[in-house]
């Protein structure tokens, strides 16, 4: 994590009176918080089993606080695009601290699809290439069909990310028409190397975007601790989705998500 992660998180928790006496400890794959509201381990390594040691283990769904995904959901919520029918997801990225295993990507995108559509995944078909790549077709309880292309690319590669929702009256997408790659707010062209800057949060200036989202997510969860119950309940469901995805690959069958 960035050296500013802990000071920024503490500062904003204080500023917005989210919790008092916030103490933050970073561990591999998780952020441990002790504060007036309790002790929590916000974990983002979804392939790792964390101890039951007095900290409540809560999934860190940082994507739920990413503005672009929040706005995709808002487009549906506000009826700009109505009646979602299908969703296309591409997520092929180099490994980083938030993306260590295929399970991390599967949980990320399955949860995000549910978050945006406000529906639950009920069925999965998948086809894996080892531990590095999988294609999936998922179906929700509202019959939204979701195609997913998920995997890893070599270190230093540009991320391939796309989320497109097809609705009855149009579509919403986080990649603009006629482009194939991510766009950035700032480019610096200096010979062979092109520098890109991604500053989008004035309060958390000069931080990598996913870490910004992680701070925002922890603050959001701490604001109302009943949200922890929903998050834990959802993670149990995500585990079932993941199991169905794995089972489908083994059986080559369209597999129901248990529960």
């Amino acid at each position: 994590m960035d050296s500013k992660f802990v000071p920024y998180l503490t500062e904003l928790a204080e500023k917005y009176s989210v919790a008092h006496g916030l103490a933050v400890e970073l561990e591999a794959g998780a952020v441990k918080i002790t504060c007036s509201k309790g002790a929590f381990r916000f974990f983002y390594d979804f392939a790792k089993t964390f101890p039951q040691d007095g900290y409540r283990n809560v999934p860190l769904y940082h994507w739920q606080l990413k503005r672009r995904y929040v706005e995709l959901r808002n487009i549906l919520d506000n009826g700009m695009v109505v009646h979602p029918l299908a969703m296309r997801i591409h997520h092929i990225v180099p490994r980083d601290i938030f993306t260590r295993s295929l399970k991390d990507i599967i949980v990320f995108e399955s949860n995000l699809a549910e978050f945006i559509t406000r529906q639950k995944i009920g069925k999965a078909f998948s086809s894996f290439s080892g531990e590095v790549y999988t294609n999936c077709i998922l179906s929700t309880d509202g019959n939204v069909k979701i195609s997913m292309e998920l995997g890893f690319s070599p270190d230093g590669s540009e991320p391939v990310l796309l989320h497109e929702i097809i609705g009855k009256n149009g579509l919403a997408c986080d990649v603009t028409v006629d482009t194939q790659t991510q766009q950035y707010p700032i480019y610096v062209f200096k010979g062979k190397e092109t520098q890109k800057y991604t500053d989008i949060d004035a309060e958390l200036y000069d931080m990598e975007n996913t870490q910004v989202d992680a701070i925002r997510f922890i603050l959001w969860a701490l604001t109302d601790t009943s949200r922890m119950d929903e998050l834990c309940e959802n993670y149990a469901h995500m585990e079932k989705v993941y199991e169905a995805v794995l089972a489908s690959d083994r059986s080559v069958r369209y597999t129901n998500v248990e529960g």
Partner: protein
Amino acid sequence: MMRQVNMAISSLTHAHVRKYYATLNDNAKLNWVAVSCANEAVAEDFKLYGYDIPIYMSTEQMLKEHPEIDGVVIASENHQHFADMELCAKYGKHMLSMKIPTFDLEEYDRMIRLVEEKDLICQVELEMHYNPSCRRAIELARSGAIGDIVSFNATNITLSPVWAFPWQGVPERSYGKRVPLREGDSRFRGGALSDHPHIFDMLRWCTGSDFDYVFADVADNIRDIEEEDVLYVTGQMKNGCKFLLDPSWSRLEEKIKRPGPGWEVLPKRMEVNFSIVGTEGVIQADCFGPNVYFNGGPNNRYTVQYTYFDEWIGMMDEFHSCILNHTQPKINLQWHRKTIEAMVRCYDSIASGEPVYIK
């Protein structure tokens, strides 16, 4: 000077037929002899283009009147293709088939026999082979630029042609017969999947392999039509390569009767994109981009104005060469059969809810 090949177009009802008008008119290797029209409305529409080409209301009449015709572009509705091929074979004419010769695999085999027995050339219109971005992406992948290919993912997503070309919205005329998508579903085969064979074909070229199994699922419809308009396909090739294809009509359109400016609602009316994942990297390719953009007439919408190189030029050059040299084209009926069979099996998968293996 190279000998011209004498060409005719039949029916003029296929959505791609407009592309042939320009190519046959402009390419000096081709001598555009005549057209036959499926009906009076089609004939009247053709006259509006202003080409000085004889019009016949019967394909057979056209072939009788013009024995000099070497080849015929069979630009008819899917269900009409076999009858048109029989006619061409009867008169010994080489054929350029539309992208779906037929979905009836027995009929398809009869087409193959017709062509073989009469020793005719039959090229299938899969124009993406003559798209330079497509060609480069496939060449890169096949040359090992990204290591071994792990997955070939592609979109062929467009607006729906059913308002401008109503036959594509009629199951019997598009798929060849009325087959329910699945039990309890009010829709029938013949929609978006039937319109988009290109990415199935490119998958075979890119991986150098054939289909092991396909799995497909269909979404609820965007449009109030009898056929599917949004679906996804995944599966595996016999060499283990994975794939995920989107052949949907997921871009909205105005319900206009003649394709032209303002047809699209989304700025880009048609996309063919590849995402080829290898053990050492990823190739992203947009076969129809980047472009130029405008807003203004007719609906004041932000719109993509395409700039890609016309694939029909290369395709017709190959047809010309095949006729002169009497060689079978790259995309011939035999080659294309496995692509068509895979598409039929996708429909079978939708019907059963399970993957379908292909022998």
